[in-house]
C-alpha cells in the first residue's frame, strides 16, 4: 500500500475538488491501473474515490452544511451553457466537447433571462464569468488555451449526469426524494 505512486500529488489535488482526467498525466494512468488499491487506501481514511464511467476520478463530496458560493455559480453557468447547446441542433456532448470557446462569444449575456439568472448568483459581467471559469479550471472541468479561449474537459460530464438525474427525478415524482440528494448523482462506477 505504501508503494502507491504519486499518492501525495493525487491526494492533494483530489482533496481540493480537482477531477483527474486524461490531461493529468502521470497521475491519471496510475489511477487507471491501480484504482482498487487507491480506492481502498482512501476508503480507510473515510474518503470515497469515484471512478466515473467516462473515465475520470474525483473524491465524493460530503453534503456540506454550508455551500460555497462557487458551486451555484458553476451550476448556473453550466446549465445555461447546456440550455444554449440544446438549441443548436447538435447532440449536446458533441457541442460541448467538440469545439473550443471564446469567453467573449459565450451565450451567457445574450438573453435577458440568462442575465437575470446569473445576477442571482452575483455574476454580472464578463469578468465575473472569467472568475467562474477559473474556478472550473481549478476543479479540472475546463482548460484555458489562451487568455480568451478555453475548452471543456471530460469531467464536465458530471453536469450532464446531474441534468439526467434531475430529469429522471422529475419524471418519477413518487420516488423517495432523499434518493436524489446531491451526493448520489450521475453514474459513478463505484457508486455507494
Amino acid at each position, binding site marked *: 500500500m505504501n508503494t502507491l505512486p504519486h499518492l501525495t500529488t493525487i491526494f492533494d489535488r*483530489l*482533496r*481540493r*475538488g480537482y477531477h483527474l482526467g486524461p490531461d493529468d498525466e502521470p497521475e491519471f494512468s496510475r489511477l487507471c491501473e491501480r484504482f482498487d488499491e487507491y480506492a481502498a487506501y482512501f476508503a480507510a481514511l473515510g*474518503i470515497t474515490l469515484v471512478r466515473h464511467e467516462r473515465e475520470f476520478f*474525483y*473524491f*465524493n*463530496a*460530503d*453534503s*456540506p452544511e454550508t*455551500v*460555497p458560493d462557487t*458551486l*451555484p455559480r*458553476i*451550476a*448556473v453557468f*453550466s*446549465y*445555461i451553457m*447546456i*440550455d444554449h*447547446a*440544446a*438549441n*443548436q*441542433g*447538435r*447532440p*449536446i*456532448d458533441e457541442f460541448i466537447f467538440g469545439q473550443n470557446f471564446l469567453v467573449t462569444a459565450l451565450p451567457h449575456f445574450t438573453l435577458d*433571462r440568462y442575465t*437575470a*439568472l446569473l445576477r*442571482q*448568483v452575483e455574476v454580472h459581467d464578463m469578468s465575473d464569468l472569467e472568475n467562474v471559469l477559473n474556478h472550473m479550471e481549478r*476543479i479540472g472541468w475546463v482548460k484555458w488555451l489562451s487568455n480568451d479561449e478555453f475548452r471543456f474537459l471530460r469531467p464536465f460530464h*458530471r*453536469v*450532464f449526469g*446531474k*441534468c*439526467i*438525474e*434531475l*430529469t*429522471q*427525478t*422529475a419524471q418519477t415524482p413518487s420516488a423517495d426524494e432523499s434518493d*436524489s*440528494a*446531491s*451526493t448520489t*448523482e450521475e453514474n459513478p462506477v463505484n457508486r455507494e
Partner: protein
Amino acid sequence: MRINPQSFFNFCANHAPLLSTLAARGGDFSEAEAMRLIRANPGIGEELPETAWRRLRELQILIPTEPGSEVFFMAEPVARLLNYLFNEANPATPEIICGYVASLETVNKQLAGALDDEDVQRISSAFEEISQTLRRIHADLNETQSAILAEVTRYKTERPRVSVREKYRRIVYWMGRYVEPMIEIVRVDGPLRTAFDETERLLHRAREEALFNDHPALARNLRFLRLVGAHALRVFTQCRKEIQPLYESLRRSSFIAQGAARALEQLQAVGLSRWGNEHLIGVAAWRYQNVPSDAAILVTLRRVIEFPPELPPVLELTAEEEAPDGLVRLLWLESLPTRVSENLPVQDLVDWLAENCSGRGISDVLAAFSVLVFYPDFHATFTDREPRTYDIAGGEITASPVTLTST
C-alpha cells in the same frame, strides 16, 4: 376529359422544375401563388406564364378543389407519378401492412375453399391475388425503408436548424409510429409470418393435389413468399439499427437539456435561497485540521516567554486649566442673543456688533451676525439705506444697515 398523353408528357418534359416545386409544396394553390411559382420556375422556350398556367389546368395537373373554385391542388395521379419520379418515398404505416395481412388471410380462406372444392378457376384467381399482394408488400417495404433512411439522413444534415428537443420528439415519433410496431408485425412469430406460412402451406397443397398446373409460377410465388418474409424482417431490423443510435444520442441529449432547463426554471421561480442543493454538483473540499505538534507548542511558548514587556499607555485624566478656544467662542456666540435682546430694537446690527465685540476678528463678527439673524426669536430686516463702513479688528466691513427686532 381525356388528356392527350403526348401533350401531357411534352409539357412535363419542358416544366420539370415547376412540377417538382408544385409537388414539393403540396396543398392548395391560388392563381397568384401558382403564377409566382411559374415565374420562379420558367419552362424551356419562350412561354408566357399565363400560358403555362392555362396548360396546367387544361392538362389537369392542377384541378379545382371544387367545381368553379379559384383554389387548386395537384391531381392525385400526377402527385403519385411525381412522387415516383422524384423518388420521394412514403413510409407504409403498420395499418397498411396489417391490411395486407388481413387481405392475405382472406385470400388464404378462399384458396383453401377452392382447394376443398377442387375449383381450378377460383384457385387461379386466388393465386393471382396472392401474387399481387406480395408484390405490393415488397414495394411498400422498400419504400418504407427509403423513407426512414431519408429521414435519418435529414436529421444528420439539417443540424443547425432544429433543436435537440424537436429532433428527439420527431425521432421518437418515427420509432413509435413505424419501426417498433412494424417489427412486431413482421417478426418470425408475428402475424405476417403466420399468414405467409399459411399461404405457403396452401400453395404446397395446390401443387401436391395437382390442382394448379403452372408449376414454374407456383415455384416463383413460393420463392417470392419466402423472400418477402425475410426481406420484411431485414428491412425493419436495418431501419431500427439506423435509427437506434440516433435515438439513443438524442434521448440522452434531450434528457440533459430537460434537466438543465428544469434547474434554471426552478432558479427563476423560487430564487437562489430556495433553489436547493439538489441542483448543485458536489465538489470535494477537504482541509487539514491537525493536533499541534510538540515543536509548534514549544515555539509558541518561547514566543510568549521571550516577549519583551512594554509600558502600558498612560491616559491624561487631569482637567485642563484653561477652556479651549473653540468652547470659549461657542459660549460667547450663545451669549449674544441674551445680550442683544436687552437692546432691542437695534437699528444697525453690524454697528452694535462692532461696539460690543471689541477685539473680535471679522470671522467672529460675521459668525455672530449669522447667529442673530437666524435666531428664531428675532426678526432681521435688510434695509436699502446708504452702505456704511464699520471698523472691525483686523479689517473693515461695508454694508447697508440691518435692523433687528423681536418677533
